[in-house]
């Protein structure tokens, strides 16, 4: 036998938090849709230069990424010279050919001619290493390239 007393007083009723999950879910879905999982862990500094005449790379699965730049702070033991990174590790110029061959083999045959190589190169890198990469790409006949840049004016960077 119990009796509950109804509380009656001047207290303000608590604000309902029932709609909080809805708000959070909304944000959650936004980030889920906008997220692109990083394919490669970068071991180099990758501060891309600016350009304003850019075109979009639309088919993401048909892009091969080649990174280059100075080793980042955690990998100082590799020196301060600019290095090439393929997939998850440092590589030398001669490994580019086999990298391209492996990427081509992993795609359907009819899509191979549409493959583009995206060069993500740090702005402070010398052109020497970029020239070497380009020469290597010419040798394996991967001629479509894209210099990936950030969008912005080139004059006041």
């Amino acid at each position, binding site marked *: 036998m119990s009796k509950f007393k109804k509380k009656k007083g001047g207290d303000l009723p608590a604000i309902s938090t029932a709609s909080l999950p809805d708000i959070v879910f909304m944000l959650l879905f936004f980030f889920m849709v906008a997220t692109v999982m990083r394919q490669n862990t970068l071991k180099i500094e990758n501060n891309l230069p600016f*350009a304003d005449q850019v075109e979009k790379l639309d088919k993401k699965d048909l892009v091969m990424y080649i990174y280059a730049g100075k080793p980042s702070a955690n990998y100082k033991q590799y020196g301060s010279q600019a290095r090439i990174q393929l997939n998850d590790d440092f590589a030398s110029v001669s490994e580019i050919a086999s990298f391209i061959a492996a990427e081509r083999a992993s795609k359907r045959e009819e899509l191979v001619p549409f493959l583009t190589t995206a060069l993500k190169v740090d702005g402070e890198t010398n052109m020497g290493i970029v020239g070497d990469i380009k*020469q290597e790409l*010419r040798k394996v006949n991967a001629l479509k390239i894209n210099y990936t840049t950030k969008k912005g004016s080139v004059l006041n960077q």
Partner: protein
Amino acid sequence: MAKRAAPEVNAGSMADIAFLLLIFFLVTTTIEVDSGLNRKLPPIEETEPPVIKQKNIFTVLLNGNDQLLVEDEIMEIKDLRQAAIDFLDNGGDGSCSYCKGKRNPDSSDNPTKAIISLKNERETSYKQYISVQNELVAAYNVLRNKRAEALYGMSFTEMEANANDVNWPGNKAKLKDQIDQIKEEYPQKLSEVQ
């Protein structure tokens, strides 16, 4: 008869779960930059390069200290775009009916013959190289935009965007022909010296 309310499920922890997921996606999100300058590398060929008149070549030299030498004169990067436009749009021999240039006989004959030659050294910084590439591509884009405005009342970039847009209602085949025509009138002839 007393009306019995269905027991309510406690949704208080739902927010916590959602927050957990939200924070996970916040941390893993990198809004990727996947745009840049598209270029095509020349295939390795054994054939002899054709002989080209010196006045049809616009030489851009980029040295190890990121200094710019254009047609044997030192130039700032901000002036490069205009210089390239003047060169391409010159129309020296009068065979180009749509050129708006000065028709200087010592500069290029026709946009279809004009070639920009870019040479850089190993010590050149990548940033500077991209800036120069960007300005040269911009010069072509400016000319193509002007030509497209005059012919079709629409800028060239707009036309290309429409051609790639699946929802664009107009006639795609016709648009492609128009784009090809402008590309033919101002072909991108940008060669790099190794």
